[in-house]
């Protein structure tokens, strides 16, 4: 089996080689961008299916953990790696023919590198570095479009993101001071029993950094602007790739290191606030991309909410619901944002003319985000309602249902306009159309028969929940 470190190494290598490739042939960068996530996907799937249920440690530089930096590969990381790289393939394939400028490809590969690195790493400072790689490349990507909205969003994102990242670094360092190590598993081991007050402070600092990337309230103020302004494929990247890698980190760190009721309660409140505020804001929007952006933020809030309920009910179903929601959202939002290419510039919710294909794609994506029956999102919704009911907080349960109604309203408002507008036959990028169709078929097929997603998800979650094994193996450095 291929060593997963190749994922990181090759991404880095090709990112640096890009200018050279660009000189050799103008189409070469695009192909490299397609091949790399595909390769990563192959490696990840291969490991997912063939690996034993024991996390694997990959040493770098010959040093054993907890002294050296290592990668920690278990099914949960592999699952997210598959998700992130699948989205990477989607983006690369859809825009393969169009993007000639190799600078975009460099940024894309670096972004992917950051995301994959976060998912694979087992070292806390390493996670900071990859987080920064992810963040900086996303600042650049957000601002890559030379229009006013994009630049505005990018600079706001940059400022907030940098502050957050600095605090994350501070938090990492405080943890180091307390535990003497930077290895995630080792820290978890040392903090398992007694957590001193300063650890909580460190946790808070780190959470501030992570909340910026995962678009949680009140640090997600940059997100609507970026979603509105950036190119559509960048919006796809933000909703389906960047935030998903960041939320992986959030889940991992909270579950392993900060496994404490206080943190779960905090995540619960923040997730709930994010969800409520974002969905209501989406209701008030006139610009279609901004509305979709708020919807993305809301779904992230809902996922964090579901995750945080584990602290209350201690049932693994909470993680299942959260991760299923994340998968559904990544795919559905990718579909929605990429489809925006088929619609006019500056699309508002009163959109007047579209072609039937893009209306259908929008409808399928929207139905899946809403959780309509026979889409993948339906199962996510059912799971979330199930765990909400387990908490016996009826007020919360009905509040969430109410927000679901709001969500249905603003999505159907657009769908009504889409299917009632004049039809326009716009030239469709065939590869984009192909990717859209694949994703929509996946959503509907999994809606009918979600066994495939469920079984993979269960495997991933078993790995996550097996905290003891993770810690012992990785901290021990076998």
């Amino acid at each position, binding site marked *: 089996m291929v060593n997963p470190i190749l994922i990181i190494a090759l991404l880095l290598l090709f990112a640096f080689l890009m200018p050279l490739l660009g000189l050799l042939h103008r189409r070469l960068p695009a192909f490299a961008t397609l091949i790399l996530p595909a390769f990563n996907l192959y490696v990840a799937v291969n490991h997912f299916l063939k690996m034993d249920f024991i996390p694997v440690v990959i040493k770098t530089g010959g040093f054993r953990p907890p002294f050296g930096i290592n990668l920690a590969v278990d099914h949960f990381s592999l699952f997210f790696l598959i998700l992130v790289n699948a989205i990477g393939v989607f983006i690369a394939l859809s825009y393969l023919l169009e993007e000639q400028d190799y600078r975009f490809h460099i940024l894309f590969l670096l972004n992917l590198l950051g995301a994959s690195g976060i998912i694979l790493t087992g070292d806390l400072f390493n996670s900071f570095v990859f987080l920064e790689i992810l963040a900086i490349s996303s600042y650049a990507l957000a601002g890559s479009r030379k229009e006013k909205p994009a630049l505005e969003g990018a600079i706001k994102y940059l400022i*907030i993101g940098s502050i957050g990242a600095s605090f994350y670094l501070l938090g990492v360092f405080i943890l180091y001071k307390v535990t003497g190590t930077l290895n995630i598993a080792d820290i978890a081991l040392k903090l398992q029993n007694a957590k001193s007050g300063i650890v909580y402070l460190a946790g808070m*600092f780190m959470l501030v950094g992570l909340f910026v990337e995962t678009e949680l309230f009140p640090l997600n103020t940059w997100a609507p602007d970026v979603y509105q302004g950036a190119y559509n494929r960048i919006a796809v990247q933000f909703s389906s790739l960047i935030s998903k890698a960041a939320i992986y980190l959030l889940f991992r760190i909270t579950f392993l290191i900060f496994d404490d009721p206080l943190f779960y309660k905090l995540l619960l409140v923040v997730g709930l606030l994010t969800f409520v505020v974002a969905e209501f804001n989406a209701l008030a929007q006139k610009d279609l991309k901004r509305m979709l952006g708020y919807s993305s933020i809301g779904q992230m809030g809902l996922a964090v909410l579901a995750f945080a309920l584990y602290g209350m009910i201690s049932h693994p179903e909470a993680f299942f619901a959260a991760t299923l929601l994340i998968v559904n959202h990544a795919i559905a939002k990718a579909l929605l944002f990429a489809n925006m290419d088929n619609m006019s510039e500056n699309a508002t919710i009163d959109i007047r003319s579209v072609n039937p294909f893009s209306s259908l794609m929008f409808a399928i994506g929207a139905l899946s985000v809403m959780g309509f029956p026979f889409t993948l999102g339906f199962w996510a919704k059912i799971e979330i309602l199930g765990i909400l009911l387990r908490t016996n907080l009826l007020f919360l349960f009905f509040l969430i249902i109410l927000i679901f109604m709001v969500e*249905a309203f603003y999505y159907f408002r657009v769908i009504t306009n889409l299917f009632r507008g004049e039809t326009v036959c716009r030239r469709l990028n065939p590869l984009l159309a192909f990717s859209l169709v694949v994703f929509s078929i996946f959503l509907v097929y999994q809606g009918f028969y979600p066994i495939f997603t469920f079984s993979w998800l269960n495997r991933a979650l078993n790995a996550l929940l097996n905290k003891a094994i993770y810690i012992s193996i990785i901290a021990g450095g076998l």
Partner: protein
Amino acid sequence: MYNINLALLAILAGFLTFFGALSHRVLRVASIVIGIVGTLVFAFLYLKPDTMEFIRMGVFAMSFNLTDISRFFLWIIISAFTLSLLPLIHEERSPFFYLYYFLAFGFASLTIMANDLLTLYMNFELTSLAIFAILLLGVRGDIKKTALKYIIYSLVGAYFYLGGLFIKFKYSGNIGFGGIQNVSTLTQIAIYTLLALPFFVKIATMPFHNWAPDAYYSASDSFTIFFSAGLSKVGVYGLVILMLKTFAELFKSNLYLPEIIAWVGGITALLGGIYAFMSDDAKKLLAYSSISQLGYVLVGLGLFTPYSFSAGIFHSVAHFVFEGVLFTTVAGVIHRLGTSDLRRMGGLIKKMPISFIGLLLGIIAASGIPPTIGFPGKWLLYEAIIMKGDLFLVSLVFFASITAFLYSYKLVHSIFLGKLHKEHRDVKEAPAGYVVATIIFLIPIIVFGVFPGVIFEKIYGFTKPVFNHDVFFTFNSLKTQIGFVKIPVAGIALAAMFAFSFILYLIAGRSYRAKQEDNYTAGEWVDEDFASHYAQEFYGFMRKAFGKLLDLSAEKFWNGVLTIFKAFSELTRRIYTGDVRDYALYLLFFLIVLVFLVGGKL
């Protein structure tokens, strides 16, 4: 063969029709005919009681079953569907329309065959989605607003249902149709309300009815036949299942719930009738009539006595038949005239005689006159309410029945009697599809009107386990503790009255064959433009009497609710001020809050 193959075949047929319509008109007609024939053949040959599980995932499996109740309602839907397809042959629609049509039928049948609450929900939602798609292809009115209203009302109801489903699961441990034990009455009522809500929306109970008049008005006319006669029965089915299987004990024991629901039904019946005779549009009038008649059904179901429940179900069958024929004939008229405005119609009796007879029998049935199918249900309902002793409710339903006479007469007079407009001089009878459908509808109007026992037998089959009552009917008569009616006798009595007046007319010898115009001009010679058609300002005096009532609108209330939501969203919007310094401030404040949170631990 599995029962759900019916639905799957329907969906397949839908795709076939889609491609057929894409290619050629003849193919379109041919595929519709195949659809009708195929559905009927399959239904006759292959439907049998059978349970089937489709997907299994842990605790949940999508299961279908054809119980007696399911089969009963499924037949109504199949009949409504096939009959509504006949007029469709004459309408020119986009290919997608046919696809959605078949999909709506397919998912509606799956909904009725569902064996647990979640399967029901999933297929019910898809039915709503298919109907939404058809509404988007509507032919008149504000289509966007109508379709959006429909889907939002449906979805809100469905989300409440979902909430109720989960709560029921929590208390009973399953999502089947069984009852819940060891739960307080209040909780049971709450769960019932949550679960029943989407079905109340579907049968347009007030105050959730606002989507219906616009939807019926906008939709293509043959679809409205299926919509009213067939698809609303999905709502009735849902209520029947909930009341008979899940909450039977609750309804039997609780004193207030049946009364409340019966009153809601009664008010719907009355107000629906009032709005009906206030309408100046044929389709809107029929829409309100449909709402009103379903109100009677709700009274019957809600009161939950053996007679009232059977009456309610019987009346829903009657509703299918007479609303079916009413919508078919009106659709035919609209097809020929190009308008649905009652004030622009008139005097078509000689031009469209078969439609006239169809409409006439339809409104006779809607008014509940023997020996049509509208009579047994209403009679039994009155008996049941009186037996329960609820005289106020009887009065309410009685007044509602009066409105039925009013709008029925308005309908028939405005279209077929009175003055024939100049532009309609060359109007022909409705096309073959409409006529054939009308004639086919007329058969059950009379047959099941005279022999209601056939249907009551089936109803008895699935209501006896719950109510444990004695047989109260024979082939052609009904008998309760306080009353008895032999329908052929009533029918003969009615016929005798007609015969008597007819004989008088024949032997009096003073009759004179007048021209149609003399009918309403009383022999005077009037200008063509003279407004002599009574359809203008029909019931104008009523408008003065009831005008204030029309201002009271549930729609305004729901719009107000929506405005509150939008206002809240305007509020939360302001958080995102656009100024990056504010954003940094949020971050800082958040950090400070977090630090305070852990302050105690330090």
